[in-house]
């Protein structure tokens, strides 16, 4: 069935189905048969596809070829840290001892898992300068929610109930205000100054005894490290507020500075950005949260701790502990253990302190190199040494070419486009984050392509308006998708009698 009327490039799994075709089969039952429940408890039909194994493999192979990926090429998607994901991670996270352990096993039988979680907690504390940490949250936004709940619980525990305002810079990611909104807080937007720092005057004016805290991304989404960070932290603390750090940009700071040392009280990590957990086509991620000592009692439960100290030759016994004033549980079981924590652990173990510093130094070098190469062609509205990413304007005087057109044209040059239209404070934003895992040749080819595209924007703007033209698919009719709202497909109506 083809509701929207386009020609079919790859049939859906439902269209590929044929009545009676068998896939992987299960063994026969080895127990005496029991009658099924009465008919009124059973479903009457199961309208799911029927395919052979080879049909499935070919279908997904064809689909995979429609995807751009980090393994396939340069993916400078700002704010997302699309670094190369080491292949060894894919092996370690599938060791049988990790794959086949049930979350409710007795702790004595999963000491390997618990030791890994415990050590990773300790490592992330050391890297970030925080006193306590939870690895439970499933992604960055989930960690933000946990962090905001912790801030809320802290004020409440002090009977400081008039605090309802969250200060959030105008450059912030949408998840920041959305997280504060989940607790009914009102969001006060703080502007940025001409150098891309928090506007101190505006911040000072907003600071009063109704402030829960401030959610700050630093380096911010312009890629700028706030030059007044200590003043910002002091203003917020002086009015009794807490500092939340959005750690999405931690790839700039490993071994460079610890957010905890700067006075941040809470921060989420994105293990799928900084610590090489692959992005999976949109997750799973992992979003641990670090907190200062005064907030440690509010962390989500349970945490992994030492429940019996080590003795002579006997290693410690790891188990679960519940913080005294916990905000509760963020999800079932213990966080994204296999797909998240094991990969991040492997990655940190292979870097050590010097290797981690290398990551951030080269991530920052690569971004600055690209910025330097593009500066004469694209306007860089906040032009100073950047951290791991920078934002350029995707528009030219006297031209109707937009950032979107430039992004689409980059696909014709075989690159994934940068993030566009974010942060909201830059017109026609192109947010470029190369990461440390790209070599100079790639960066040069990318800069050359962007410079060429700027020329094309003047000489042949339709090349950009109509881009991409070399990819398998062209631009999409997004309005049609939203208007017709075809959100699923089914087996054909005459399915049982066909073929």
């Amino acid at each position, binding site marked *: 069935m083809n509701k929207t009327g386009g020609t079919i490039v790859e049939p859906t799994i439902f269209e590929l189905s044929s009545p009676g075709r068998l896939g992987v089969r299960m063994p026969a039952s080895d127990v005496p048969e029991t009658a099924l429940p009465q008919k009124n408890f059973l479903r009457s039909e199961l309208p799911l596809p029927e395919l052979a194994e080879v049909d499935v493999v070919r279908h997904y192979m064809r689909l995979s070829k429609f995807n751009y990926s980090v393994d396939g090429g340069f993916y400078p998607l700002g704010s997302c840290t699309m670094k190369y994901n*080491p292949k060894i991670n894919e092996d370690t996270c599938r060791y049988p001892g990790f794959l086949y352990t049930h979350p409710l096993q007795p702790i004595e039988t999963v000491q390997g898992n618990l030791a890994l979680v415990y050590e990773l907690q300790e490592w992330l504390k050391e890297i970030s300068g925080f006193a306590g940490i939870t690895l439970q949250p499933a992604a960055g936004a989930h960690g933000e929610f946990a962090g905001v709940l912790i801030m809320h619980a802290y004020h409440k525990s002090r009977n400081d109930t008039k605090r309802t305002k969250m200060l959030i810079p105008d450059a912030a990611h949408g998840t920041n205000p959305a997280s504060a909104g989940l607790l009914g807080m009102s969001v006060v937007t703080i502007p940025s100054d001409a150098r891309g720092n928090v506007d101190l005057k505006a911040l000072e004016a907003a600071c009063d005894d109704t402030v829960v805290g401030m959610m700050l991304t630093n380096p911010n989404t312009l890629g700028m490290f706030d030059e007044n960070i200590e003043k910002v932290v002091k203003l917020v603390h002086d009015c009794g507020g807490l500092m939340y750090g959005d750690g999405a940009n931690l790839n700039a700071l490993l071994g460079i500075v610890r957010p905890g040392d700067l006075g941040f009280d809470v921060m989420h990590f994105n293990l799928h950005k900084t610590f090489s957990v692959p992005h999976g086509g949109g997750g799973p991620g992992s979003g641990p949260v670090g907190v200062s000592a005064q907030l440690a009692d509010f962390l989500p439960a349970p945490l992994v701790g030492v429940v019996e100290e080590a003795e002579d030759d006997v290693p410690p016994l790891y188990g679960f502990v519940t913080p005294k004033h916990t905000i509760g549980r963020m999800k079932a079981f213990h966080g994204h253990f296999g797909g998240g924590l094991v990969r991040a652990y492997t990655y940190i173990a292979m870097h050590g302190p010097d290797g981690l510093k290398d990551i951030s130094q080269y991530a920052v070098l690569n971004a600055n190199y690209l910025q330097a190469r593009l500066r004469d062609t694209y306007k860089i509205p906040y032009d100073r040494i950047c951290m791991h990413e920078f934002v350029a304007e995707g528009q030219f005087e006297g031209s109707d070419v937009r950032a979107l057109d430039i992004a689409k044209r980059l696909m014709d040059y075989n690159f994934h486009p940068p993030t566009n239209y974010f942060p909201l404070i830059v017109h026609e934003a192109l947010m470029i984050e190369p990461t440390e895992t790209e070599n100079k040749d790639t960066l040069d080819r990318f800069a050359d392509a962007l410079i060429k595209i700027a020329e094309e924007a003047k000489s042949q703007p339709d090349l950009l308006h109509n881009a991409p033209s070399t990819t398998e*698919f062209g631009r999409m009719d997004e309005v049609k998708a939203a208007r017709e709202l075809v959100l699923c497909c089914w087996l054909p109506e005459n399915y049982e009698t066909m073929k």
Partner: protein
Amino acid sequence: MTFIPISPNERDAMLKTVGVKSLDDLFDAIPKKHRFPKLDLPPALTEMEAAAHLSEMAQTNENVREHMISFLGAGAYNHYVPSVVDHMLRRGEFYTAYTPYQPEISQGTLQAIFEYQSLMTNLTGMEVSNASHYDGATATAEAVSLAYAQFRGKRKKIVISPTVHPQYREVIQTYSQGMGLEKVGDDESANAEAGPEALMSHVDESTMLVVVQYPDFFGRIHDYTKLIEDAHAKGALVCIVANPTALIMLKTPAEMGADIVVGEAQPFGIPLWYGGPYLGFFTTKKSYVHKMAGRLIGETVDSRGQRAYVLTLTAREQHIKRERATSNICTNQGLLALASALYMSTLGKTGLQQVANLCYQKAHYAASELSKIDGCDLCFDEPFFHEFVLCCPKPASEVNEYLLEHGIFGGYDLGQDYSSLQNHLLIAVTEMNSKQEIDTLVEVLKEMSHE
């Protein structure tokens, strides 16, 4: 320098282009006294050393394939995953891409997730599915947010069955702290053993949502049709937390009239992995789609007239709505949605039915043999699928200790969550449990009851 492909010469040339002398000079904006901390971390391992070290950690565990016989379920199930699933997941084109913001070069992910949405709607009988949630518990909490948004905060009561997974109820508690909800139905005094009728007395004109589980946490199959009719008569919505393996066999929640069907799709192609990452599914009626959280993929055409797929109705989401969004979710469980689509496709209708039937048959054989043991009884008379409650002659914690000594994870000790069920084990049986394993469990329990 493990994964950094830049030579010293290239580095120097790049520094020159940037206009600084050294890498350290790039960090002048950082307060000097905190710049370049010495991190106290173990020295770097090579790949070979890291592989050995992690392998050793993994081997410290007792796992349910190589060492232990397991009857643990309670929200995470040991199923066979066809080989194809992981082979396809390991394609870099899938696992090293991100959220398909650029549809022209992301049709692989987009079509695969569209197909996942379609598989889930066909399985539950509902009209729409989102692209995924973090897990079953957070999907359930998001159902509460949907209902809250639907009534614009004017109805504030939710009725939760005490036989919804205890951890899911905890997560609802955490998530709803900003809503000022009244929660009833699952407090300490509630009779956990009662059926769905018992909930009805709580439902009134201020009720926004009723949450029940199917099969319930004790494994029982209830027909919720009557409960849903009654709840609808009071204007409330009903959310069913469902097990996908059970749905292969059982009457669909849609047939019972459910408004929202959520659950944990880990049983569909995702390893136990010590609890995560798993896959929350979320399906509902089309009329609630604008209040639904999470990503959504819709069909359209491209500029060349080809059928294609895009992220749609994004105006619901945090990057547009910001503080007014009903959810803050951004990154979800993309790769695991692909895993479950692969699982459903590879087994297909017949293979899935075989899995469901094996679970049912083996669980019933186990229940019937266990109930013959002196002092052991099945706790409930209602029909069940692949999980049931065994009432033992001793506290379940002691029974489990005894079984552990014999290489068996006996089941989930319900006394941890229900003070009246101290002697009760929740036992799950899947296609992975052979008759011999079940017989071993029975033998060991017999020995115990004779001691």
